């Protein structure tokens, strides 16, 4: 199990680096798809099956398709400007390292102590569905409203305004 974990983790990180580092937007999009897939696998390993599938459907299936659509429609040329100066990359990297340097020990300290709970929670569609429609029904409806708004917004924004 841990071997699988490290493998998937590796894929995940490589694809993440790929997203950030690749010069061509399409490549980074594909890397992101790979990343999302590996996250889905992670979910599956954590018994969150419903989430894994939903992750694939929502992220890989819908969002990335949109991204690819946009990329292809706008036929983004390669990043013609030179990559940002060394200073900015260095600085950002430094910031990232600092963040890690602080965050990782913090996580270690705060969560290592908590014992692994006995209940082996199963993220199956049934359990999640049951919980979703009983306890979290209000947020669920709110989410649907949000999506409605997003759709209307997207249409309004992207609709080509024909000169009257």
């Amino acid at each position, binding site marked *: 199990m841990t071997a699988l974990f490290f493998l998937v983790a590796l894929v995940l990180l490589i694809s993440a680096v790929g*997203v950030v580092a690749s010069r061509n937007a399409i490549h980074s999009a594909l890397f992101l798809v790979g990343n999302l897939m590996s996250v889905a696998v992670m979910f599956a390993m954590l018994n969150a099956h419903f989430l894994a599938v939903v992750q694939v459907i929502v992220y890989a299936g819908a969002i990335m398709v949109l991204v690819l659509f946009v990329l292809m429609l706008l036929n983004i040329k390669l990043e013609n400007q030179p990559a940002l100066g060394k200073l*900015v990359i260095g600085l950002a990297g430094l*910031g990232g390292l600092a963040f890690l340097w602080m965050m*990782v020990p913090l996580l270690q300290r705060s969560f290592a102590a908590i014992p692994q709970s006995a209940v082996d929670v199963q993220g199956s569609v049934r359990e999640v569905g049951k919980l979703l429609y009983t306890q979290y029904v209000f947020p669920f409806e709110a989410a649907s409203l949000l999506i409605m708004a997003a759709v209307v917004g997207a249409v309004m924004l992207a609709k080509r305004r024909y000169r009257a």
Partner: protein
Amino acid sequence: MVPVTYYLTLSALMFTLGIVGVVIRRNAIVVFMCIELMLNAVNLSFVALSRLVGNLDGQIAVFFVMVVAAAEAAVGLAIIISLFRSAKSVETSDANQLNG
């Protein structure tokens, strides 16, 4: 059973990459993708912690994060398209009219 700290460290790494990506990259869509990356990192830690704690709330949270991410993607990309239509390029550095 893989200890939870591994997952958290992994998500932290991913999150950092996301942030660095956002700060470094010039192309709006790549920035958008990096944000998706960060969101995924958060989802991962959610699920890991929900397993640690033993109830499904974490997973419900991830569900809603995905909903929001989807909505955000729709609107974000619409913006990028309208941006492209006006600024003829998706480089964030070109869209700096709101300065001064």
